[in-house]
């Protein structure tokens, strides 16, 4: 039986309210007698954070060691994806709720990768790990031992939500959203403030990209801003329309997954692609056009 949606009034305003759950909803669901076919997944920047304590029953999916291919710079293929999910007790019918650190960057990234494989019911925990912790909710170090289930081997469908470098070159002149910090956008910084230099040889942004740092979509407590606030940023201020063909990018595609989620599921944009090659590819590519300077 499908797990019901969270009918939180804040979510009801969004284009796809079924993509979010609140901490209240999740806590109630987990403590109910019959939580249903629900698996909670934690996905963090720090590979050990889950192990220090996580939502009871949650399993870990690491963005790097689980979702990325070990050799090629790409996501895992269908067999590997099926194995990773099957080991975690996730079938194609399971409702997956993902949460993580850093305002859900990696959770949104994992959700986006699950979407590449067309997983039907995948939701984000609004506010992520930080809100769950701030509210003093239960954490445990007990790692669940899910029964191995069969997840089907399904093709990855990149085209509709993922842009590769050539797609971006063909897209120039249409809306691009650069979600990095202003210093990265202007070219002064080659990485996030306080983050390691990850080896981009050129600073700046893709020509024509608008600078809309991802964090503008998040409230102080890490939850998403409400629909009216988001529309004021992306529609009124930036002049984007839900029918626009939009590409979002950052450094390696995690922060732009957050913005992809906002545009697609909260504001109902129909054609948003995440360019996961992002600046670590564009800023190193020979001969591609670059702009520098502030917006």
């Amino acid at each position, binding site marked *: 039986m499908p797990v019901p949606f969270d009918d939180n009034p804040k979510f009801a305003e969004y284009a796809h309210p079924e993509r979010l759950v609140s901490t209240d909803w999740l806590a109630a669901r987990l403590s109910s007698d019959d939580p249903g076919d629900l698996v909670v997944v934690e996905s963090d*920047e*720090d*590979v*050990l*954070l889950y*192990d*220090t304590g996580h939502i009871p029953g949650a399993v870990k999916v690491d963005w*790097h*060691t689980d979702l990325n291919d070990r050799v090629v710079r790409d996501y895992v293929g269908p067999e590997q994806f099926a194995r990773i999910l099957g080991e975690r007790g996730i079938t194609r019918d399971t409702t997956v709720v993902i949460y993580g*650190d850093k305002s859900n960057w990696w959770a949104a990234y994992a959700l986006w990768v699950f979407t590449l494989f067309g997983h039907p019911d995948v939701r984000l925990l609004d506010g992520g790990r930080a809100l769950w912790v701030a509210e003093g909710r239960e954490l445990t170090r007990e790692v669940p031992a899910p029964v191995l289930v069969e997840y089907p081997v399904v093709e990855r469908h990149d085209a509709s939500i993922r842009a590769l470098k050539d797609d971006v070159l063909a897209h120039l002149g249409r809306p691009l959203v650069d979600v990095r910090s202003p210093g990265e956008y202007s070219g002064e910084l080659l990485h996030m403030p*306080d*983050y*390691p*230099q990850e080896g981009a040889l050129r600073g700046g942004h893709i020509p024509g990209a608008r600078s809309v740092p991802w964090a503008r979509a998040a409230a102080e407590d890490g939850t998403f801003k409400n629909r009216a606030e988001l529309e004021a940023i992306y529609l009124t201020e930036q002049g984007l329309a839900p029918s626009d063909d939009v590409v979002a990018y950052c450094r390696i595609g995690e922060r732009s997954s957050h913005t992809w989620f906002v545009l697609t599921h909260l504001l109902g944009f129909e054609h948003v692609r995440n360019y996961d090659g992002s600046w670590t590819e564009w800023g190193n590519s020979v001969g591609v056009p670059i702009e520098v300077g502030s917006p």
Partner: protein
Amino acid sequence: MTPAEAGTPLPEALGTIAEDFTSLSVRDRLTLLLEFSDELPELPERYQGHPELLEQVHECQSPVFLTAEVEGADDAVAPPDRRVRLYFQAPAEAPTTRGFASILHAGLDGLTVHEVLAVPDDAPFRFGLGEAVSPLRLRGMAAMLARIKRQVREAVT
């Protein structure tokens, strides 16, 4: 000072830790790293609340600070034989980084200046952690080691 090259053995305590890690399965290496993370000593009182007295490791993806003290500067001990004391601060939200710091603390704290400077620069890659946490994340440990050695070198010259 001879350069610390690949192939140079690790100091005994650090070498034992490396053996402990590499003898485990990849999954158990993460568990051991968590134990190290849990055991990172607190900063002594004189450093608490004073990040400006410590050096930030900018290569790490979280706010990590460290300092290396060299003991016995005023007595008759020759600089290479003076003892090194290491202090780290890393947030609970960054357990991997805490684990790296804790490994370096357990393996290097109390060694002599000579011994610390002789630690090979590739030491962080000898724990079999590349497979467990990804090589990308190991760069933070290499950066901590480099900053420790630089501080120690500066303290005795």
